[in-house]
């Protein structure tokens, strides 16, 4: 069996403080992602999941600083890499999509050239060779009329189409890892279903691994093989998806699942009050500090 694609060890992110210990946003985060795997990171706002993803991409801005840790990718530590080599890797071997595609797309450039740019920058193609490849990439993400859409500007597309364009940009160079940070949170449910299916099918075909970040337990359950639950900057539980949802161990995970109005639960449980994480869970209790991190493959 080959080793992990990305091995994150003890990632700690924080804000340095001249007069004392740094304020830690993410503490001692360790997990790995296997080639082709869809790994989910779930947590609420402020849990540190996005800061962790941005650290991997070398995109955190001051004062947020990576204080400790390694992220090994093909023998190299992403966190210790020069900006220059990181820029080469980013978009080529590791790429990222965000919640709001409109903020990631250039409003003044046509869709086609924003995709073609990837081939020019990372593959050294000429613009005239890159353009037909951009149309192919649009076709691969099932955008109807790819040739016409390549000439369109971002504002002329719907939210779902824009996210498909972002996926086309991210997948253009067939990366090893796609980091998807809340990719469908802004979309309608039926569009969300289509975009999720597209990500899964495309990554399966290209052998791309996915780090899927979401606050939506449903999305995570549907997409991921393994799931990490983050809260307060720490990884509390890391399990096979099925084990996590059938038999959550950490009180926070249990609370999170009980706070979710699940479709189909009312017929069984009635119109009950939902669990209140703030009152049901004492984040300072000793039990909260415990973690449930199961190695891959081990039965739950």
């Amino acid at each position: 069996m080959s080793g992990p694609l990305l091995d994150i060890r003890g990632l700690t992110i924080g804000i340095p403080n001249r007069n004392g210990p740094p304020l830690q946003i993410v503490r001692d985060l360790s997990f790995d992602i296997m080639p082709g795997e869809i790994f989910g990171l779930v947590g609420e706002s402020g849990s540190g999941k996005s800061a962790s993803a941005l650290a991997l991409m070398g995109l955190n801005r001051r004062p947020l600083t990576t204080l400790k840790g390694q992220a090994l990718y093909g023998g190299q530590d992403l966190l210790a890499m020069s900006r220059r080599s990181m820029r080469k890797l980013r978009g080529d071997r590791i790429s990222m999509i965000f919640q709001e595609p409109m903020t990631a797309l250039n409003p003044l450039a046509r869709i086609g050239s924003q995709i073609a740019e990837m081939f020019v920058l990372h593959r050294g193609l000429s613009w005239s060779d890159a353009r037909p490849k951009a149309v192919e990439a649009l076709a691969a993400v099932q955008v109807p009329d790819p040739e016409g859409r390549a000439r369109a500007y971002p504002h002329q597309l719907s939210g779902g189409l824009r996210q498909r364009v972002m996926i086309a940009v991210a997948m253009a160079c067939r990366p090893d890892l796609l980091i998807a940070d809340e990719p469908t949170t802004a979309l309608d449910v039926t569009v969300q279903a289509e975009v999720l299916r597209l990500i899964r099918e495309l990554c399966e075909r290209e052998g791309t691994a996915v780090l899927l970040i979401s606050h939506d337990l449903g999305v995570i359950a549907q997409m991921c093989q393994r799931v990490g639950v983050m809260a307060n900057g720490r990884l509390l539980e890391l399990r096979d998806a099925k084990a996590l949802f059938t038999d959550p161990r950490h009180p926070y995970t249990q609370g999170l699942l009980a706070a979710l109005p699940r479709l189909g639960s009312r017929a069984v449980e009635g119109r009950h009050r939902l669990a209140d994480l703030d009152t049901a869970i004492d984040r300072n209790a000793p039990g909260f500090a415990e973690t449930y991190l199961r190695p891959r493959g081990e039965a739950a």
Partner: protein
Amino acid sequence: MSAATLPSPASEPILSVKDLHVRFPVAGGLLRQRRIVHAVNGVDLAVQPGQCVSLVGESGCGKSTTALAIMGLQAPSSGAIIVEGRPVYGPGAPDRLARARLAQIVFQDPFSTLNPRETIGRALSQPLMLHGVKDRCERVDRVATALRQVGLLPEHATRYPHEFSGGQRQRIGIARALILGPRLIVLDEPVSALDVSIRAQIINLLMDLQQDLGLSYLMISHDLGVVEHVSDRVAVMFAGQIVEEGGWREVFTAPAHPYTRRLIETIPNPARLTGGAQDILPPAPEPPSGTRFWPPIDQRPEIGRPPEPSTFVDIGDDHRVRVRVG
């Protein structure tokens, strides 16, 4: 089973919407000809006192336009909206002030409805002032009561909107809706911008308030998990029309219209992974003989084309679906 949850026919609905149409003219196309968008196309709804009725659908289906029309913020092209026995539009319609006491609305993003330079106390007491509560002590008192009702503290009245978290802001939005004591509250995506734990707290609060104050809700939402959890009745809207309507149990356990079924199927649901029996949709029922479910869901109706005639038929005790004859 479902007969017990049926409202007694004698009770007067607190809100009734009858054959509501809202059309917008849009310029466009060749020769700039004017076309008409049928945003809302013949919606019928009734909310009984103390009930929560949910209107479900995706962006652009007309659910928010319906909500705005009910609030008196979007004049209908035709049809009637009656709140507590009084028509919202036309002769005999209450003026803005009177309307504000009948129905209030809670928006998805309360921050955008609050003046950043005004304290919460001021924002909450202003409606009281406008509605003739002259005594300052009484206003302070009522603001404190409203803040307590939504789980905040009277001291919060001196703070500004930016000092509150997202969940607290939504509580303020609810307090603002409650301050004039309306019996009907329209909830427009009240929890979709919130985190799981905050969402649970706000849903619990809304359920508590409904019970304690005898409120009636019309909830607009695309989150079917939330809708199933809190609603008494559910109406599913697609392309300006209600395509399925009924008690929550009927709609969620025996969804009939292809659009309702698609919505339920496409919700990512952890229960699917754990193999919960309740997750499996029952087989699709056949439409009543000689009809087909309407409208077809794979083609969006063309802009500017009036919708084709269809009818709403009973398919169960408390369950109706839109079909077309022939």
